[in-house]
């Protein structure tokens, strides 16, 4: 755990950037969101903004607001089993609207069909299972962010 942290850890200092790139976490369990936020902030520091939403509807609303402020959305970590729209459907919706956004599913209920669907239709980057370890979360996010940068580069070139 310490190892993963040491090579990823960014300066904790408060950045000066206004519209930081956003990592969004969606889960209907508040304590899960709090844990994710704490771990992400610890590992990735203030280079990113971290937004939390309690279901897909809340998340979609938040994304619309982000669009207005101009803060770019890089990556979404979503639970699967939530009231209303399930995680696979949500990530597929996101992928259709924002194909560049990297998608990660974090689930306690391994529904193989849903994972397959998200892999196929939402270009799922990783599927993590609860309880997750900080190291695997860090790996999923770090590689996801790298992928975002690479795709952006490819798109420009």
């Amino acid at each position, binding site marked *: 755990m310490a190892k993963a942290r040491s090579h990823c850890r960014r300066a904790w200092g*408060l950045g000066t950037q206004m519209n*930081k790139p956003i990592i969004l976490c969606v889960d209907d369990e508040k*304590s899960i969101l*709090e844990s994710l936020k704490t771990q992400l902030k610890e590992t990735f520091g*203030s280079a990113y*903004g971290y937004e939390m939403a309690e279901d897909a509807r*809340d998340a979609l609303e938040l994304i619309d607001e982000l669009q207005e402020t101009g803060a770019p959305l890089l990556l979404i970590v979503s639970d699967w089993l939530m009231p209303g729209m399930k995680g696979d459907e949500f990530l597929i919706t996101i992928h259709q609207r924002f194909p560049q956004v990297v998608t990660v599913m974090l689930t306690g209920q391994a529904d193989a069909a849903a994972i397959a669907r998200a892999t196929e239709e939402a270009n799922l980057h990783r599927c993590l299972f609860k309880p997750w370890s900080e190291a695997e979360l860090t790996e999923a996010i770090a590689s996801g962010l790298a992928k975002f940068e690479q795709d952006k580069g490819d798109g420009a070139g």
Partner: protein
Amino acid sequence: MSELSSEQGQQLMTLLECALSKTPTFTVREERQLKRALTQHLEAAGLPDATAIADTLGDMGLYSDDLEGILPMLREPKRELILELAYRLSGLQRSMQRIDTATERAAKVVFALKNYARYDHTGERIKAQVLDGIETVLTLYYNQLKRGVEVIRKYEEIPQIWCYPDELNQVWTNLIHNALQAMDNRGTLTIQAALAQERVQIDINDTGSGIASELQERIFEPFFTTKAPGEGSGLGLSIVKNIIDKHKGQITVASQPGQTIFSVRLPLHGA
């Protein structure tokens, strides 16, 4: 911490005490709105990095209402260090609270499962409190209730009755499961318990779509279902009916769109 002057040390303590006095009660959505308001307040106060400061303060449970006491600290050149120290130190308490909540819930679920899984093989009636069974089922359904369903308990004091408690658990499970499904996990679930004419009456009331009147007569028939193929076996309510019959009780339904009440009446002394 040795980098801090005594005045700065004092400011750290003030901030820390303020953060430790908070117990989080807001929803994720509310927190987001509070953080935004705080960002605007910080900007209005002329602070750079308002977004980042608001984020860290918000994570500590501190919002605009707490700003007055900590604003001088936020103007310090060492504010980053003071904020980080306070965030990390108070973070220990936040982590402990999370562990506390999680273990408490795990303990409840284990207790409920043990209760539920215990099966009385003697086949004899025993004296038991039916409300305990209902509470067990509510605990097991916590994940489907916690968001979107308001549970209202209207329990009068009712005595223990002679019954088969494990079988009654199946009754409550089926009725509560159906109620949640009818409401699509959004609405109000009211459970009422009363004593009338030597009988215990339990009403399970949901605000779901209701059961069409022409179907109400048939719902207790085996294999009758209105659910999509694969969703239900059609056996749930017929099993419920058999168990109630075994207790020499009655079950009735009253339904209209927006409200369905299943009423179970059980004699105190059974058969």
